[in-house]
C-alpha cells in the first residue's frame, strides 16, 4: 500500500519511512506543507500520516483543503500538540485517527494496518481462502500450513489486491500503489510480479480480466 508521510522533522520522517517500508508499504516522505498538499491531491495514496505542525501550511488546513477537493484518502494525524483541542479540530476536519508524539512505532504500524483494512472493509486482518492464508499484520503468506517466501514487491502486489477484493485493478493502478514517487514505475514489471505470485501460490486466486487488469474475487 502507498503511504505519504507528511512530517517536517527529517529524522522522524526517515524513521517512519523505514518502519513502514519494512511493513511492505511504498512510502513517500514530504516535509513542506505546500508540497504535501500537492502530493496528497494528485497521488493516489492509500493513507497519509499527517503532522499538524508543518511549515507554510498548517496540517489541519491541508486536511481541510483535501476534504474540500474530495480527496478521501485515510488520514492519520500525528501530533506533538498535547491538547485535545487540536485532536478534535483534526478529527473534525476529516482525519480518521490520531496519535500523539512520542509514540511507539509498533502501535503506529498497527493503527496504519487497521486503517487500511477499514478502508477496504476487511474486518479480519487474516485473509483465508481455500487453504491459502495471508496475514496483513506481518505480511506472511502460507499455503496448506507451509510458509511461502515472497519478495517485497510480490507482497505489495498481493496485499493491494487482497485489500481491494472484488475490484478489477489495472496494472497502472497497481504500479501507482506499490511504488513510491521516485520508484521506477514500469507497468510491464507488474505482469512479471503477478506471474511469479501465481507460481508461488500455486492457485488461481488472482484472475486476469482481459484488457483491464487483475482481480481477487470477493469472498462468498
Amino acid at each position, binding site marked *: 500500500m502507498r503511504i505519504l508521510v507528511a512530517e517536517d*522533522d527529517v*529524522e*522522524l520522517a526517515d*524513521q517512519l519511512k523505514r*518502519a513502514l517500508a519494512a511493513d511492505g508499504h511504498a512510502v513517500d516522505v514530504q516535509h513542506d506543507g505546500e508540497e504535501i498538499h500537492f502530493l496528497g491531491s494528485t497521488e493516489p495514496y492509500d493513507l497519509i500520516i499527517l503532522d499538524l*505542525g508543518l511549515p507554510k501550511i498548517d496540517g489541519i488546513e491541508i486536511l481541510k483543503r483535501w476534504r474540500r477537493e474530495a480527496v478521501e484518502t485515510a488520514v492519520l494525524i500525528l501530533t*506533538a*500538540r*498535547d*491538547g*485535545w*483541542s*487540536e*485532536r*478534535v479540530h483534526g*478529527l*473534525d476536519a476529516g482525519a*480518521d*485517527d*490520531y496519535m*500523539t*508524539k*512520542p*509514540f*511507539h*512505532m509498533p*502501535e503506529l504500524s498497527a493503527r496504519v494496518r*487497521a*486503517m487500511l483494512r*477499514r478502508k477496504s472493509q476487511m474486518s479480519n486482518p487474516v485473509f483465508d481462502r481455500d487453504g491459502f492464508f495471508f496475514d496483513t499484520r506481518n505480511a506472511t503468506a502460507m499455503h496448506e500450513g507451509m510458509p511461502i517466501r515472497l519478495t517485497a514487491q510480490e507482497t505489495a502486489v498481493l496485499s493491494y489486491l487482497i485489500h481491494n477484493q472484488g475490484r478489477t485493478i489495472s496494472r497502472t493502478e497497481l504500479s501507482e500503489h506499490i511504488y513510491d514517487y521516485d520508484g521506477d514505475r514500469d507497468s510491464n514489471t507488474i505482469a512479471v510480479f503477478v506471474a511469479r505470485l501465481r507460481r508461488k501460490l500455486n492457485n488461481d486466486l488472482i484472475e486476469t480480466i482481459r484488457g483491464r487488469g487483475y482481480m481477487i474475487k470477493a469472498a462468498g
Partner: protein
Amino acid sequence: MTSLRVRAVLGGLVWVAFSLALGTFGILTFVNSLSERRFDEALVERQLQVLVALSSSEGDEDALESFLTDPGYRRPYSGRYWQLRKTTGELLTSRSLLDGLLRMREPDATDPELWQGRGPDDEPLRGIIQRVTLDNGDGWLVLVADSETKLSEEKAQVRRSVLLAFGILGVIGVAALATQIATVLHPLSKLRSDVLHRWDKGQSLDPGEYPSEVAPLVTDINTLLARNHDTVSRSRRQAADLAHALKTPSAILRNELQALQNKGTETTRALSALDRVDAQVSRSLARMRASFGGQAAFKPLDVTNVAERLGRALSKIAEMAGKTVALEVEPGLNLQGDAQDVEEILGILLDNAIKWAGQHVRLSVRGQDNHIVFSVEDDGPGICPKKRSFVLQPGSRLDTSEAGNGLGLAIVSDLCAAYGGAFELETSEVLGGLEARCTLPRRRLAA
C-alpha cells in the same frame, strides 16, 4: 480599607448631625431669648400697672385692688403676684399670695431691677423690684413677679416643636444622603457587575457608559483584561510549541532505541529513562495548561456545541474499535469558560471510556441549577471504589500494559478544581461500568 459607601455614609451622617445640632442650638437660643423678652415685656407692663394703681390709690388697699383686675392676682398661688412695702413698714400683697410673702431686698437705686426668688409654693419667680416715691411723699418698695414655670413650659413646648421639626429634617437629610450616595456610587456598582458579566456580552466594557471620572478606569480594566487574555493565549501557544519542540526529538530517540533493541542491543534502561522524561514533560505541560483553566474566557462558551462536536469526533475513533458513543446533550447550554478546557476534559474522559468500554460509551451533558454536569459512562470493567482516589493521582496507572502516561484523570481533576467544580468517579447505573462525572459552575465566582 474602609469602603467608599461607608466613608460617604459616615461623612454624610457627621455632616447632617453637625448641621442639625448647630441649627437646633441656634433656633432654640433665639426662641428662648424671644420667650424671655416677651415674658419680661409683659412683666414691665404689669409693673407699670401696679405703679399706676399705687399712685392712684395712694396706698389704699381696696382702691389698689380695684385697679388691678387681673384674675391672676386673686387666684391663690396663681404664680402672679405683687407685693408693696411702705418705708414705714406697712405691707400690701396680692390675694394670690394668701399669707405668703416674697423676700424683698433693697435695690441699690431707684431704677427698676430684675428680681428672682421663690414663691409661696416654692416655684421659681421672676420679677421687677423698684423703689418709688409717690406724689404725697410716701416711699414704697414695689415688687411685681410672675412664675417662671410658665416660661419654662413655653420654652419646653417650643423646644419640642423645634426638635420635632429638626428630627423630620434629619430623616429627610439622611434619605437624601442615601439617595445621593447610591447615585454617586452607581457607576462603580455597574462597573463591578459589568466586569463580572462581561463574558455574557462577549465584549469589552464601553467607557462611554460611565461618568468621566470612572471612564479612564474602565479603559484601564479593558487593557488589563485584554493583556491577561493575550498572556494566557501566548502561554498556551508557548506550551504547545514546547510540546512540539520536545516530543518530536523524544519520538526519534525512542524509535532509534527501539530499533537498536530489535537488533539485540540492550536499551531497556535508556528506554525507561526516556519514559521518565516523557512522563515529566507531559505532566509539566498538563499542569501548565490546567493552571490557565478558564482564564482566557471572554465569551460565554456554547457547551452544547463543544460537547456535540467532540462526541462526534470521538465517535469516529470508537467506531474504528467497533464501539459506539451515544450522545445526550441538552440544547442551549453555556458556561463561563474556555473551549479548550472543556474539550480537554471531555476528550480525556471519552478517550478513556472508549479504551475501556466493552461496546457502549455514553456522553450526557445537562444543566442542573447553576452547574453543568458532564457524565461519561461505559460498560467496561469500571474501577473499584478503593482504587478511585488512586487514579486521580498524577502518574498513577491501573493498567501499565496500555500506552499512556497516567495523567488523564489527574488533568481532568485539576481542570475541574481550577473552575471551582467537582470531579467524581462512580459506578454507571445505566451501563454498569465506570461513570466519570464532572460538575462545573455555569458562572465562576468573583475572585
